[in-house]
């Protein structure tokens, strides 16, 4: 984390322009914590009755046993949902989603993917997201909504039957929930990797500039 250290020179070179407003930063880190709690406790629950031919290593699970995993999952659920809902509402109300994430054009995405793979994708202006970022960030918001809806459907398949119906039936909701988790994990790996490659983006997510 030494890359976080900011020299005085850099600070004076960067104008005092806020790239990540305080609400984005606060909700981002609350979300990061909630996600990690949900994933690790979710793996504990998964291990009780694996959907596929594997289990998650015990040391990467939270809760100690199924009952503990469930307690963590259904506690962190509130953190994830309330924070996520606040993020969605603020994101739409302030126009941030529209300004930052749109438009997403196939040609733009194709161009930036090519540029990224050949290490030619610039990150000069942190305030503007490239097409790969736009696609990933918009995509992960959709995945976030899907994982909450499928999760709520699994939690209350009778009371919230319309959520289960949205996915077909109870077992399908379970698969959707798992696939969304896998997508979030994949996103996390790419996201953290890129943040470490471009440390100033991590700095912006912590101090705003």
């Amino acid at each position, binding site marked *: 984390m030494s890359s976080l250290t900011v020299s005085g020179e850099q600070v004076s070179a960067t104008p005092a322009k806020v790239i990540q407003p305080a609400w984005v930063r606060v909700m981002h880190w609350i979300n990061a914590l909630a996600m*990690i709690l949900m994933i690790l406790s979710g793996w504990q629950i998964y291990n009780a009755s694996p959907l596929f031919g594997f289990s998650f290593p015990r040391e990467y699970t939270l809760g100690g046993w199924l009952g503990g995993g469930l307690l963590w999952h259904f506690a962190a659920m509130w953190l994830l949902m309330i924070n996520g809902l606040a993020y969605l509402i603020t994101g739409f109300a302030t126009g941030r989603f529209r300004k930052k994430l749109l438009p997403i054009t196939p040609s733009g995405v194709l161009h930036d993917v090519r540029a990224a793979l050949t290490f030619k994708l610039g990150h000069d202006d942190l305030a503007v997201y490239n097409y790969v970022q736009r696609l990933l960030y918009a995509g992960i918001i959709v995945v976030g909504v899907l994982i909450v809806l499928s999760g709520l459907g699994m939690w*209350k398949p009778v009371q919230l039957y319309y959520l289960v119906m949205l996915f077909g039936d109870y077992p399908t909701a379970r698969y959707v929930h798992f696939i969304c988790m896998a997508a979030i994990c994949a996103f996390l790996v790419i996201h953290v990797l890129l943040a470490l490659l471009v440390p100033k983006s991590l700095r912006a997510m912590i101090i705003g500039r």
Partner: protein
Amino acid sequence: MAKRSFLIPGVDKRLLIKDSIKAMPDFTRRRFIAGGASLGALTLLTGCDVVDSSSAETMLAKVSKFNDAVQAFIFNPDALAPTFPESAITKPFPFNAYYDLDDAPDIDGADWKLEVRGLVDNKKSWTLEELYKLPQVNQITRHICVEGWSAIGSWTGTPLRDFLKLIGADTRAKYVWFQCADKDGYNSPLDMRSALHPQTQMTFKYANEILPRAYGFPMKIRVPTKLGFKNPKYVVSMEVTNEYKGGYWEDQGYNSFSGS
């Protein structure tokens, strides 16, 4: 507004502030260490077992109680669990318990009696023969296990609410508490509103045949609005009560309402 000065007779303001500052860093430092330590544990980077500490457990137990209340709040007594055609039945329907099938209670139906206790007018015990004479209905519903798997089964028996009415139960009471013949004395409380749900059933038959030992002979309580562990098998007694008496899995940390 006029500036008001806070004067406490006999106390030097400057000294008071000095003392407060001396006291403060200690307090904030302690807070910081406590906060930092639990955050470190949450990220599991240290492998430290603060996650299993009593403070985390107390917090989780409180949230679980809150979740009980939320589930009770959104529980709609008229919402029916989905029913399925016979072709959807899971074959074979799984045997599931914390012991092997060989260790499941092997009950002699002729000797067995259902004991009725608590806030009811008629506390007489019921033989299986007497219970079999009650009107029965069939339901094909999904059993959802707390582990996540599910299976569709065909259950036939008497709606529990009809039986509660028959024995003159006080339906304003909070729970119907079931005790079972399992080893370790399995038991589980069912909140009254779920007990009165039209699909909650005293089950005597599976797939139109006498309930096999694997699924809880002679009587299982089938609650399609609850997770599987809230569906007690090999039931020997029921008690209508206002007291929360805990349950086999509930006491170990499973959420007590566990509604579906």
